[in-house]
């Protein structure tokens, strides 16, 4: 049972921009809905208007070119990423990260962009895309801009997206194609659960980054690290960027321990 709202489903970006402008912040974008509809079901939010972006062709699809890298359209759902042959070939473990999200039903519906826009500290795509040095392209009637994902998250459930903007696509740099990549996620059960702590490492011959989830107000990432960094220094780098808290899911101390443990495990796996 949901409270009253209106539903709009524009078919072009132009229409979408116009609607966003008109609604002046009162509209909420609907993609997979796996987060939004839960929040509405629980009466945590009650938007006046939902704008469904799934009918806009420009927001669909995954594209790869060796020059520009990977582009993931905002309406792309997890299962598309998981099954995409280019992703499997060049960013195989990005597919693995998407596989960590929810249950099959959720992966069939939840979008990668939605996982980022929700800006939960535990977003599974957050730490992995951060490690890959991804950026996001935002668009509005005024034009588009690209910002690094590490600058995109500004706080729990907060991002840089302005009222009139929409996330158009996620961009993963070409130089990270073929990177060694691994992810670990601490859960309370073996079935679907949100991350209690998560770590993703991506490493090429030139650079290494460690992304961490559920251990700070947003998913966080180290700076560009030397790929031949020792384990101790890598652990120190990851430990520096986190500020875990005690909550119902775990204690801060255990989160800190598991982040260190995951870095060690991934080091063992990737090096």
């Amino acid at each position, binding site marked *: 049972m949901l409270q009253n709202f209106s539903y709009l489903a524009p078919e072009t970006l132009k229409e979408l921009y116009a609607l966003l402008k008109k609604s002046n912040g009162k509209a909420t974008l609907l993609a997979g809905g796996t987060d939004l509809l839960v929040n509405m079901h629980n009466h945590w939010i009650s938007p006046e208007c939902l704008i469904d972006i799934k009918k806009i062709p420009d927001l669909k699809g995954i594209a790869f070119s060796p020059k520009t890298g990977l582009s993931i359209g905002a309406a792309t759902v997890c299962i598309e990423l998981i099954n995409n042959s280019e992703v499997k070939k060049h960013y195989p473990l990005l597919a693995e990260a998407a596989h960590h999200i929810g249950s099959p039903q959720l992966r069939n519906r939840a979008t990668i962009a939605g996982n980022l826009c929700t800006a939960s500290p535990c977003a599974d795509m957050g730490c992995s895309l951060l490690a890959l040095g991804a950026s996001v392209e935002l668009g509005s009637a005024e034009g588009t801009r690209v910002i690094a994902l590490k600058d995109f998250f500004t706080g729990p459930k907060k991002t840089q997206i302005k009222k009139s903007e929409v996330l158009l696509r996620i961009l993963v740099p070409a130089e990270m194609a073929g990177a060694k990549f691994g992810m670990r996620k601490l859960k309370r059960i073996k079935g679907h659960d949100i991350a209690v702590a998560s770590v993703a490492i991506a490493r090429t011959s030139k650079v290494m980054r460690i992304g961490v989830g559920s251990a700070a107000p947003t998913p966080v990432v180290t700076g560009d690290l030397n790929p031949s960094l020792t384990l101790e220094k890598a652990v120190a780098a990851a430990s520096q960027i986190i500020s875990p808290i005690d909550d119902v899911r775990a204690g801060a101390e255990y989160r800190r*321990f598991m982040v260190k443990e995951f870095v060690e495990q991934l080091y063992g796996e990737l090096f």
Partner: protein
Amino acid sequence: MLHNIPAKDLKYVGKDVERIDVVEKLTGQALYTADYEFAGMLHGKVLRSPHAKARIKKIDVSKARRLTGVHAVLTGNDLDYRVGLYLVDKYILARDTIRHFGEAVAAVAAETPAIAQQALDLIEIEYEVLTPFLDPKQVFDKKAPLVHPDLGKYSYVEAVFTPVPGTNIANHTKLRKGDVDKGFKEADFVFEREYTNPNVQHVPMETHIAVGKWDAGDRITIHTSAQSPFTVRNLFALSFKIPHCNIRVITPYLGGGFGGKAGIHLEPICCCLSKVAGGRPVRIQATREEEFSLLPCRSGLIYNIKTGVKKNGKIVAQKMTMYWDAGAYADYAVNVTRASGFSASGPYEIENAWVDAYTVYTNKPFGTAYRGFGHVEFSWGMERQMNYVAQQLGIDPLQFRKLNALKAGSKTLTGEEVVENTGNVTKCLDAVAKSINYGKLTPAELARQKKTGMKIGKSVAALQKAPAMPPFTGTVMILKLNEDGTVTGSHSLTDYGMGTYTSLAQIIAEVLRWPVERVRLPIENDTDRDPYDWQTVASKGLLLSGNASILAAQDLLDKCYEVAAQALRAQKCDLDHDADKVFVKHHPKSFVTYQQMAVGYAFPNGNAICGPIVGIGRYIAQGLTNLNKENGQGNPALDWTFGAHGLIVEVNEKTGAYNVIKVASAYDVGRVINEGSVRGQAIGGMLQGLGTAMCEGYIYNDKGQLLNPSFTDNKIPTSLDIPEEIDCIAIETPQIDGPFGARGVGEHSMIAVCGALGNAIEQAVGADLIHMPIRQEDVWKALNRRVPVKKAAVKAKSTVKQAKK
């Protein structure tokens, strides 16, 4: 009853018969309460308290009442009715005082759920937030705030329970067996420890739902997802002082219960709203979030055990103190306390025993029945204690259990003598030990350890439980013979998933010598149509209703024989029957078919005799007594079902991560009636037990507010969480007064799984665990010798006294 017929002579009992309700469930055609639409139906919603304890200073519903589409708004001020199963302590909606987070404060009925929600949002309440009482261990603190200052004025079942007015003790169960002081003096060692459990939610997949209709002339119709339609009727009648015959309770298909739907819950609110709305039916369907706090949960427990033991491993004395965290209302918790009190030592003989079990009111969501009825909780402590004592003595934990196990000639805590046919816990222990290769690691397991770097541990744990029920618990089965020689049954045991109806159909078929397909037991129950049954709880259904079924089938046959005797001019002793007819033994061609006699037998000339045929079987528990209030002695047990689990786990010594590799479970079920159902109960309960053991439990803040009322933060096991291997074993020591020798096994599979897991983890890596659930983090903390995890506001304490004389 019919316990000594060899299995080979049985045609339907003991066979793997498919469930009689499976086709409609597989096709989506089974109708649950939420699937019914009623003309004029309104949607009810409940406003819940955000505070654990508060005084309602002001409540203003005028705006809600004025909202278009709203037909009824009620607050506690409108309803001066108390309801309670054993202790009448709960208002239908809170009046003046809030006693727990999530308590119902007001209710509305409107034309749509959305309007009802809007109406709730328009209710204005001013609370004065008060300091809650949250720690049951503080029950003897004279300054502790009282949850029920009026406890002394409440009515209760005086023969059984002992509330202590002026305190937060809703019931104090005492048990004194032998001479405990003398026992401790004789002991070579004394070990005392304390174990804790949080509140846990049942999580039936179907949330609570009821549709109430209160017509003019105080005629009430309730459709509800309740386990016990007659209990709903009885408690409703008592609260509102309405004749029982005016109240009709219908239970459609039920989507699970596990005890959480045993009592009366949403029904009074729906009906009161309906009355205000002029008799329009009002439906309230609890949200999943409401399941956690508006509706009841399982009580928490702090269990202190002091064990006196001889060097040779024989337990000679045990003092057990239980602080049951019952929450704001007594509901079933007082009886959980009683039933746990008389079982508190597990399936072990304790010569000198002393139990004090307190049901403590706290400002938390209230506890009710939950599969195992207290045994899952105390068994956690008891089975951990058994391992602890065995280790301290340097005796193998399995040998220690077998040495102290109840066996023929032993006396239970209440002084009941165990006989051969009571069942055999030692056989259960041996069976599971064998199944898991207890006491050693196989080459494959050693190789696995090497490969994974994890440590493998093994354990066994034993369990027992008897139905917790009044000594006068009874039931009826009525079998109506149909024109075509099929039979339709009528009774009020409910089947919320267990498969008992299929077992009953097999029992009836066996006696009648008819195929199961010719026995229909409608899954829906209706108090206007069906005869009385006390409740569907306690694992008593198969035994009591099974016996009633045998008696009903025999009565039906007896009536058929009477007709045949007249029609065939034969004596009844010369008759026999098969699937189709009653015939003369010596001249089988001389017979009368069931079709011929179903609605009255007619001779060729038209003369008719006897009328339609109905068989009736009534059965009531035999020889049970109330327990002596001072020493707890007496005979409370309809039957004891014993069992054991063997568990293999692998644990990461560094992180505390663990995988359950195998669980083997054995139960002495007396006689297997339906293989698939026994296995279903065994595996389903085991996983529910693992859920309790691994991840489930309420977490509160220090204000008593529940922090995890959802599946997001109260995880339950999924298909990925089951053990890699599962083994189920049935031991069959017949229960002489059980139907074909059977006894119940509905709850038992959930008991002692927690202890088995804790013990196996400890065996693997040495993590000493005293609080459940056991999360990965808890193992890590235990491994790091940190203070046991504080989960609830309740503080877990470990005291180890090792007094060598």
